[in-house]
């Protein structure tokens, strides 16, 4: 038996190696032996009522106000509802909030709730629950990361069972957009710790959580949107290894799985599986500590920007499956600036050298790029940057850190250069103020420009959308062309592998948005 296994190993060594490394050359040969037999395993369309989604990570509790981990968000966003949602084009659409009105001075927002919505335990969802939920988010003891979204919120008033009034300290144009996040879900008034307990109003109910194995969700029969939640049960199957997920989806054991760009290429054209990609809200960046010498000189930072060929990063790291990006990812269509308009995005080594010389570093310098070893794309990005910076005499050492360690360094505000990934928020305010305002909690670059701060603060308070857009454009240009506290590199596409008997359309609106609309053919 052992010998047979070993013989089999030899025969397929090349096959496996290519699959292990995700290399794209061998996949067409790999598929052949399986193609004919694949058809027999097709599940019966009529009998199937369960959608199996691969989960790469174990969820870490289901409290929407406490846990920002993606592995938890994808589940609790099906268990709870938020006031609003964003559609696939990042337009704000009503959800629990049927409609809302902003007062003339911009400081009062009156929200009308949809009537007749019930929590899964049968209680009515009322304005009191909305008030409780927002107060819970604002309570420092909750430790909600969404608290920072609502710094303008002064008080909440439950006017009648279906009317909530938000009183703001100052006008906040991003306020309603921020209520679309699943981490601002409405929970029942009086809720305690929701880590393991759940009682939302969402389209699905938590049926069973088998730690290390799966999370089973059952359709909420009384869901207020009868047009949504078409599938009876959704099972998140925890599968941490990409090779296993690929084998499972090809064998028809799972229906939906997020896959890397490499695996997407590998699965392209395989029978029974469709690969669906969309432009994500994420972007990769090179963060620069503007307090540290020599990076305290904007000329040095501009030089780095001119020396970096972002297209090479798109091609090498993301295999072409990414778009150039500014401080706001291109998927946030209404706010992103066309990167072609940026002079600093055009590779210009001579200009970079000249700028370095002007700053007093004609021969370049030595430095260090910190990045997270946990994410191969970040390491590869750092390597490409290392090569490109050599051309202008900057010799960067790459320091790969384990994720927990990386976060420590990130928080310390004491690095030199750092490669990472950010997610553009649901509103331009998130991408601009949170990451780059002097007081912004994710501004770990020590970047501080009063003109910039004023601009994004005014943009937040601007009621007129055209005016607001112009301000954000100006602010984006300020970051990209003048101050350069970050280099915005590439916004990757995300990919899902989906069995061909499943209707599932992933988009930047998020996985849960697609799951409640998914169906089995």
């Amino acid at each position, binding site marked *: 038996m052992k010998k047979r296994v070993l013989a089999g190993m030899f025969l*397929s060594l090349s096959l496996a190696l290519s699959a292990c490394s995700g290399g794209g050359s061998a996949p067409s040969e790999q598929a052949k032996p399986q193609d004919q037999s694949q058809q027999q395993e097709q599940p019966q369309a009529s009998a199937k009522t369960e959608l199996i989604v691969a989960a790469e990570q174990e969820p870490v509790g289901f409290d929407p106000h406490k846990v920002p981990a993606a592995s938890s968000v994808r589940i609790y966003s099906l268990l709870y509802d938020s006031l609003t949602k964003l559609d696939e084009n990042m337009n704000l659409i009503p959800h629990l909030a049927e409609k809302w009105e902003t007062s003339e001075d911009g400081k009062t927002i009156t929200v009308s709730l949809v009537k007749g919505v019930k929590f899964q335990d049968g209680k009515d969802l009322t304005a009191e629950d909305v008030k409780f939920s927002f107060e819970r988010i604002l309570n*420092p003891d909750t430790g909600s990361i969404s608290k920072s979204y609502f710094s303008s919120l002064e008080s909440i008033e439950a006017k009648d069972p279906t009317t909530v009034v938000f009183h703001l300290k100052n006008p906040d144009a991003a306020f309603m957009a921020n209520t679309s996040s699943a981490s601002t879900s409405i929970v029942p008034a009086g809720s305690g710790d929701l880590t393991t307990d759940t009682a939302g109003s969402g389209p699905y109910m938590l049926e069973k959580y088998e730690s*290390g194995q799966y999370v089973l969700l059952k359709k909420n029969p009384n869901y207020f949107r009868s047009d949504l939640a078409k599938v009876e049960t959704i099972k998140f199957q925890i599968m941490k*290894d990409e090779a296993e997920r690929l084998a499972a989806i090809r064998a028809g054991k799972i229906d939906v799985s997020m896959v890397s760009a490499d695996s997407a290429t590998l699965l392209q054209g395989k029978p029974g599986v469709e690969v669906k990609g969309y432009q994500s809200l994420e972007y990769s960046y090179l963060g620069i500590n503007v307090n540290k010498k020599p990076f305290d000189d904007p000329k040095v930072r501009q030089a780095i920007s001119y020396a970096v060929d972002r297209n090479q990063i798109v091609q090498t790291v993301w295999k072409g499956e990414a778009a150039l990006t500014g401080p706001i990812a291109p998927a946030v269509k209404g706010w992103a600036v066309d990167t072609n308009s940026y002079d600093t995005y055009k590779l210009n080594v001579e200009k970079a050298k000249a700028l370095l010389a002007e700053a007093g570093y004609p021969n370049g310098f030595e430095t260090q790029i910190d990045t997270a070893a946990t994410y191969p794309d970040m390491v590869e990005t750092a390597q490409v940057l290392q090569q490109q910076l050599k051309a202008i005499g900057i010799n960067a050492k790459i320091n790969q850190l384990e994720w927990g360690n990386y976060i420590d360094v990130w928080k310390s505000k004491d690095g030199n250069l750092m490669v990472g990934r950010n997610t553009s928020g649901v509103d331009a305010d998130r991408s601009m103020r949170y990451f780059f305002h002097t007081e912004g909690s994710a501004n770990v670059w020590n970047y501080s420009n009063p003109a910039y701060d004023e601009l994004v603060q005014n943009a937040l308070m601007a009621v007129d959308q055209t005016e607001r857009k112009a301000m954000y454009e100006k602010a984006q240009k300020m970051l990209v062309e003048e101050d350069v506290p970050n280099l915005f590199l590439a916004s990757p596409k995300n990919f899902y592998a989906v069995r061909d008997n499943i209707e599932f359309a992933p988009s930047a609106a998020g996985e849960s948005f697609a799951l409640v609309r998914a169906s089995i053919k």
Partner: protein
Amino acid sequence: MGAYLLKRLVSLIPILFGISVLVFTILHLVPGDPASIMLGTNATEESIAALRKSMGLDEPLVTQYLTWVGGLLQGDFGVSVHSGQEILPQIIKRFGITLQLTVFAVLIGWLVAIPFGIISAIRAHSKTDIGVRVATLLGISVPNFAIGTLLLLVTSLYFNWFPPIDVVSFWENPVEAFKVFVLPATTMGIVVAAGVMRMTRSAFLETMDKDFIRTARAKGNSKWTVVIGHAFRNSSIPIVTIAGMQIGYLLGGSVIVEQLFSIPGLGQYVLEAIYQRDYPVVQGGVLFVALVFVLVNLLIDLIYTWIDPRIKY
């Protein structure tokens, strides 16, 4: 014997105490903070502080250690700072899965290794022997993630067979459980087999040279009667020793195999906790594994006395 057993069990106390101090210290020396990892780069200082407080991490280290050990002495392993789940029931549940996987892997390994090891020794330097030795070398050299990935790909792509994705135990449904565990157990079994096969071969080579074997043969016993009746028991001590070590290691959870086949065993549980800096889980898990390792070794020592009655404690 009774006194020996008591002595060994009492010696567990300093061992476990030492391990508890060691694992606690090392874990808290490792950079990275559970609250910041959980909240990621989106966190605010305020939210991290609130979470640290709710996790009990704002207390001084000594207090944290004493609280933890105090709980342990009352059989309370605490709760995961991450998922809020009780740790002990999780450890027991996952250990049950790891135990089944280990037993299955060891059975596969031994069933292959012992017969082939014996044949290899009896027919030393024959073609069979060379074949077995090459296979052994391969089994030891090829890393188990490569074997596992290959098994998974070959069965799913060429035989269109994929193991069931939900883990069931042998007590619930032996047939399903067999399907769940066969690939990971084979992956681990290959490595087990390689080690045991080598040891079996060398132990038998040595025993077969002994005078009493020649005497037994001279008395007219057939070769196989001698091998089974005389040589086997006398060669068992080193084989049992290495098998015991292997079982001890495997019961700690085979991290790579569990990860690859999504087997929610102890190894995966502790590994995940290390990534998340889920201190109580790692501490409890490591302590539990240490206890199991020491107990397995004790058991092996006791088995010696049964194999060779001359050994007395």
